[in-house]
């Protein structure tokens, strides 16, 4: 394990930024998101949750997929270059770090999404352990250890010192590049922090939420539950929960007519929206009840059924703090559980 004083952390950022694009939780306009590092940036490694998750790094809100040049009856397809430069995402929390492996199950399974794959290959994740969880945190319900996040490098911040440990080949390579700034050390301070944080995690209110009934639950029983009626009613049908969610993965593809060709792009989509999966035949989900149910069935039933029981949620709690009317996945889990 290595360490660096938080007083010198800027030097570490600069060193990384010299050879890689570096993304960090940065405060702009009063809110914190992952933005590219620049000098004078207000880096906020102390903030537990960025508004959006870190998934933008691999699945940007919008990206061009290809272009078509049209000349008379001739159509030429122009490829868009895939990302091929290494980049570093620094300060990823355990919940967001797990979300990447959930997204992998969708985007890296056949047929592989080459845009996503390229970013995953080039991305180096420097995760940061949590020491001050929020009441809205429930990553422990998904066997995520907030004190030991997944990542190429894992860092812990304690008493003005950042502790650094490489976990993968990519992480070791990054460590070598910044080795001159790091000092070798023992794990005593990190061990102390981990023990203290685990005590807090044990006291988190959402520990008591029963999720056992969902494991191996019958899909149609959940689908047909009468409880959806009471749950969906107050939903505004906005996309806040989907867009702040680390595991929401749906996108829409649109063609933009440039006048002499077409730019085909994709952007995040939300199953809460009326035109979600709208097709020529028109029969997508017609009511908010169906749309609301889709989002939660996907995370709690369809995804686990297709992915060895893994839920499509990492317990970051963003939907709890951001939903305009305070409806969220924990309320759904608790309410549906009441059926049993």
């Amino acid at each position: 394990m290595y360490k660096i004083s938080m007083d010198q952390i800027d030097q570490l950022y600069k060193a990384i930024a010299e050879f890689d694009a570096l993304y960090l939780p940065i405060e702009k306009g009063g809110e914190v998101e992952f933005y590219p590092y620049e000098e004078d940036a207000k880096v906020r490694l102390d903030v537990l949750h960025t508004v959006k998750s870190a998934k933008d790094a691999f699945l940007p809100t919008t990206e061009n997929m290809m272009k078509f040049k049209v000349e008379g009856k001739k159509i030429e397809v122009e490829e868009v270059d895939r990302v091929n430069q290494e980049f570093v995402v620094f300060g990823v929390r355990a919940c967001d770090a797990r979300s990447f492996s959930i997204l992998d199950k969708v985007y890296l399974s056949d047929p592989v999404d080459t845009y996503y794959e390229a970013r995953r290959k080039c991305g180096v994740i420097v995760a940061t352990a949590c020491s001050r969880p929020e009441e809205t945190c429930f990553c422990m319900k998904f066997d995520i250890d907030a004190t030991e996040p997944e990542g190429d490098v894992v860092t812990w911040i304690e008493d003005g010192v950042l502790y650094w440990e490489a976990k993968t080949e990519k992480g070791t390579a990054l460590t070598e590049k910044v080795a001159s700034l790091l000092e070798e050390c023992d794990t005593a301070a990190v061990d102390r922090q981990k023990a203290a944080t685990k005590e807090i995690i044990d006291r988190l209110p959402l520990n008591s939420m029963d999720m056992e009934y969902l494991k191996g639950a019958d899909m149609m029983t959940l689908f047909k539950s009468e409880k959806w009626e009471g749950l969906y009613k107050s939903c505004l049908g906005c996309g806040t929960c989907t867009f702040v969610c680390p595991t929401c993965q749906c996108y829409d593809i649109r063609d933009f007519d440039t006048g002499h060709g077409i730019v085909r792009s994709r952007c995040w989509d939300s199953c809460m929206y009326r035109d979600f999966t709208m097709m020529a035949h028109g029969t997508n989900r017609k009511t908010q009840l169906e749309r609301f149910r889709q989002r939660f069935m996907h995370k709690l039933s369809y995804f686990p059924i297709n992915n060895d029981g893994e839920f499509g949620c990492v317990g970051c709690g963003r939907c709890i703090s951001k939903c305009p009317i305070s409806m969220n996945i924990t309320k759904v889990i608790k309410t549906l559980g009441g059926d049993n």
Partner: protein
Amino acid sequence: MREIRELLVNKIKELLDNGTVDRVIGWKAGEFCYDVTPAIFTKDDSFDDFLFNGFCGANQSKYLIEETKAPGRDEPEKGKILVLLKPCDSYSFNQLIKEHRIDREKVYALGVPSKGMLDVNKLRNMGINGILGIEEDGDMVKVKTLYGDKEVARKDLILDRCRCCKGSKHVAYDELLIPEAEEWEKDTTDRFAEVEKLEQMSAEERFDFWRSQLSKCIRCNACRNVCPACSCRTCVFDNANSGVAAKVNADDFEENMFHIIRAWHVAGRCTDCGECSRVCPQNIPLHLLNRKFIKDMNELYGDFQAGDDTETKGPLTAFTKTDAEPSIVYSRGGDK
């Protein structure tokens, strides 16, 4: 608040029992005392988790559009619905009636008092997190957290919009829960003060301010969907045939366009309820766009409060001979 809750539950049960209404839009308790969700309760429901506290800020008027719709062919006729209106909610209620979006005959409106609603994010901004419980105790609020107990002044937790409170008077109701509710002691600020600050900026500074705010927008549409003035059946931004439909801000222009078009569209109809800013996950001060329009309209056409009543035509839908000519833009600093 606890006494008011009791009074309120008794009144609701009375109205349900005597058949005045068959359901009520109330507030349902969540996990953390601040995560209150609007919910429909009927006579047979338990009211144990019915809540009325400082976190019931959500303006419920807009739900009435759906709730008072004529039933479909196979649906049973519904009775009246009871809505609980805080003084500021009653303006949106009136405005929706004026726009024929609510069937007034199908609603029983009970005016409930408010002495300013609370914003849990204010606690978080004070560095208080891990919030397990919040108890309002007169002027103070006691907060229980994972990291120890705290006590803060209630006035420091008031939602920004409540600092510019329109007052304790309801402009629409069938009945008032507390007929002579006293004006609450508010720590008011002039609602146009921030707009004036923006007006005094140079065009460049103002542009930078709005860019830094609007560039945070994730196009979740929470502002639009919560807005009682945004009640179009299909929003232009959802209409694939409109040419401006967009799910995402592909460039700077789209970030600005969505919010500015929305502000224009609700101009003269926006009651300044402040829901847009309350629900924005990025805390963009969207209400300032609306307030700029309100301030300009007040200056050009005389003071007007949307939702004051259900009849008066708004300044932008009425025509008078003294209306400002378009050229007024030059005398107000516009470029020729």
